[in-house]
């Protein structure tokens, strides 16, 4: 018998084996509230966030779990905070490798080292390194936990979407399984089917941007070496294994090594283990024993869709936008898409917010994608200069960086992912000039220690009214929503991050932990107006 849903890649973890669903025998297509297509990190997180909000969600993937390729490696503090809200961060933190120090080399010289020096008073570190399959596995474990607690999440492995038929009030899907095809319908469809997004293609939507003419070889090697847990980056390395090179530690004695090979290469030849070993040997020096764990050659592009919402189809993660790996902005930005989308869709499905709220998913996350694309394009242009003169200027920066600290601020081996502030968003309400800029409306709330734990942990699943030294009711009810109050003491961290020069503060915080509006006193009318605005009712 022919395999109707062949594996396109090998699995690291089989997580949701195919099982025949009654939907496959249904006389008329079963209608689901939300269908997520794609079980990568973004699809899994979307299903989990919606399910935890009580929204019934069905996830379809053409495989049965996490692919073997390591790919994403650095996961940011904001991603961990979001995963914590979803109940998935603990194991990630336990297994992940924490790092703070980076070293930048040119040729055989150390130019300088930097320390991410995370600000004290946050629950999570600036970054952890964790192989993508493990990230996906831990996300899936959290889905199992949520299901056990009654979250209405269903995953169907080896369910490949072959056609999308959008209609005014639903979307129909043709799905292929090992038992043949069947049809499904969804009120809302979320396409998390990756950078090559078949769904985007089926809908004839474009994905424009820049192609970078360069190939990168990744060699994940297993070795018991006593290199420190640091990020080492070489421009024009003396060991000549590439035009640039990267060495970074992962869990399980695995090290990510990345070589820039240039544009005109023979892929098959470069992927021969002997050729990979020659490059790795030159880098690590003689006598270092290692095994090749996973190798791949990739090229990349920086591009995005024009819009992320197309009627009842929403695109999230790599299907909507793609960046170069420098800066670790791929999965990290996709997780922020999920964070932005899930609460909005849940409110729309509840009838608490108008459909127009979903247009702000588009505007806010397009803003985020543009920021990521800009940063990753600039890093890429620095790492692989496009013209002789840009290479000369780049090398001049590197020459000066060894002795002159100012030049180090220009060296760009990737500006590491930071969460986006939704400046100018239609959902933002009033600001207050005396309060810190970092918590202006649109900003993600910075964490802080508070009595009995961490601030972000104390924020609810919905909106929260945060008060510092300001009287306010324990619950505000408006526009069909109950907004609980969280009263905080003005500790040094809270003063520094939220109060600034104000005497007192009242913050309206969105369900994705971004600031909606802030005042120096409570007023029921003002908060209610800001709430209406933040749910798209204005």
């Amino acid at each position, binding site marked *: 018998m022919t395999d109707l849903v062949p594996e396109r890649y090998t699995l690291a973890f089989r997580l949701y084996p195919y099982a025949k669903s009654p939907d496959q025998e249904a006389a008329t297509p079963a209608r689901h509230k939300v269908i997520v297509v794609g079980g990568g990190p973004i699809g899994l997180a979307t299903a989990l966030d919606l399910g935890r909000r009580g929204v019934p969600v069905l996830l379809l993937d053409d495989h049965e779990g996490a692919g073997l390729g390591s790919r994403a490696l650095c996961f940011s503090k904001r991603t961990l905070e979001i995963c914590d809200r979803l109940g998935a961060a603990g194991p990630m933190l336990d297994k992940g490798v924490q790092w703070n120090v980076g070293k930048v080399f040119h040729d055989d010289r150390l130019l300088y080292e930097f320390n991410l020096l995370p600000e004290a008073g946050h629950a999570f570190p600036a970054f952890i390194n964790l192989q993508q399959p493990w990230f996906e596995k831990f996300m899936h474990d959290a889905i199992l936990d949520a299901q056990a607690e009654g979250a209405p999440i269903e995953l169907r492995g080896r369910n490949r979407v072959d056609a999308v038929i959008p209609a005014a009030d639903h979307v129909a899907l043709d799905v292929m399984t090992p038992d043949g095809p069947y049809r499904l319908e969804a009120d809302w469809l979320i396409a998390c089917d990756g950078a090559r997004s078949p769904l985007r293609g089926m809908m004839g939507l474009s994905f424009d941007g820049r192609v970078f003419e360069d190939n990168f070889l990744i060699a994940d090697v297993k070795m018991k070496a006593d290199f420190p847990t640091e990020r080492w980056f070489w421009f024009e390395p003396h060991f000549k294994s590439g035009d640039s090179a990267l060495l970074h530690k992962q869990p399980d004695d695995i090290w990510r090594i990345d070589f820039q090979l240039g544009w005109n290469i023979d892929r098959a030849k470069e992927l021969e283990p002997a050729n990979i070993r020659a490059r790795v040997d030159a880098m690590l020096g003689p006598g270092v024993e290692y095994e090749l764990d996973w190798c791949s050659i990739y090229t990349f592009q920086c591009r995005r869709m024009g819009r992320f919402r197309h009627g009842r189809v929403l695109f999230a993660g790599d299907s909507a936008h793609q960046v170069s790996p420098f800066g670790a902005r791929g999965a990290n930005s996709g997780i922020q898409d999920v964070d932005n989308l899930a609460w909005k869709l849940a409110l729309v499905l509840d009838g608490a917010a108008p459909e127009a709220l979903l247009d702000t998913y588009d505007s806010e996350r397009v803003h985020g994608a543009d920021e990521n694309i800009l940063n990753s394009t600039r890093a890429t242009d620095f790492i692989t200069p496009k013209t002789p003169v840009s290479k000369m200027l780049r090398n001049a*920066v590197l020459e000066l960086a060894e002795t002159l600290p100012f030049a180090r601020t220009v060296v760009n081996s990737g500006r590491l992912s930071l969460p986006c502030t939704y400046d100018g968003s239609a959902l933002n309400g009033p600001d207050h000039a005396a309060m810190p800029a970092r918590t202006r409306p649109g900003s993600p709330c910075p964490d802080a220690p508070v009595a009995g734990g961490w601030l972000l942990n104390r924020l609810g699943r919905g909106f929260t009214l945060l008060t510092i030294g300001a009287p306010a009711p324990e619950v505000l009810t408006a526009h069909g929503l109950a907004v609980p109050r969280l009263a905080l003491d003005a500790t040094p961290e809270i003063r520094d991050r939220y109060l600034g020069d104000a005497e007192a503060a009242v913050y309206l915080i969105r369900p994705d932990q971004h600031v909606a509006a802030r005042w120096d006193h409570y007023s029921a009318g003002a908060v209610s107006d800001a709430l209406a605005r933040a749910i798209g009712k204005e």
Partner: protein
Amino acid sequence: MLITTPNLTRPDETYAALIATHEGLSEAESHALNARLILILMNHIGDDAVLTEAMRLARDKGGQAA
């Protein structure tokens, strides 16, 4: 604001020093020196708006080209 009115304290001496700095260098070395010099001066100026104006002016060959 970018200063375009005469501002060099010792124009002839400074210009001669610039030429002398390149003495004995190959063309490639001279280009690299110029690149370093630009970066050092950029940092001294610091202000993004002034530098952007200077780059525009340089691209326009001092404002003569249309």
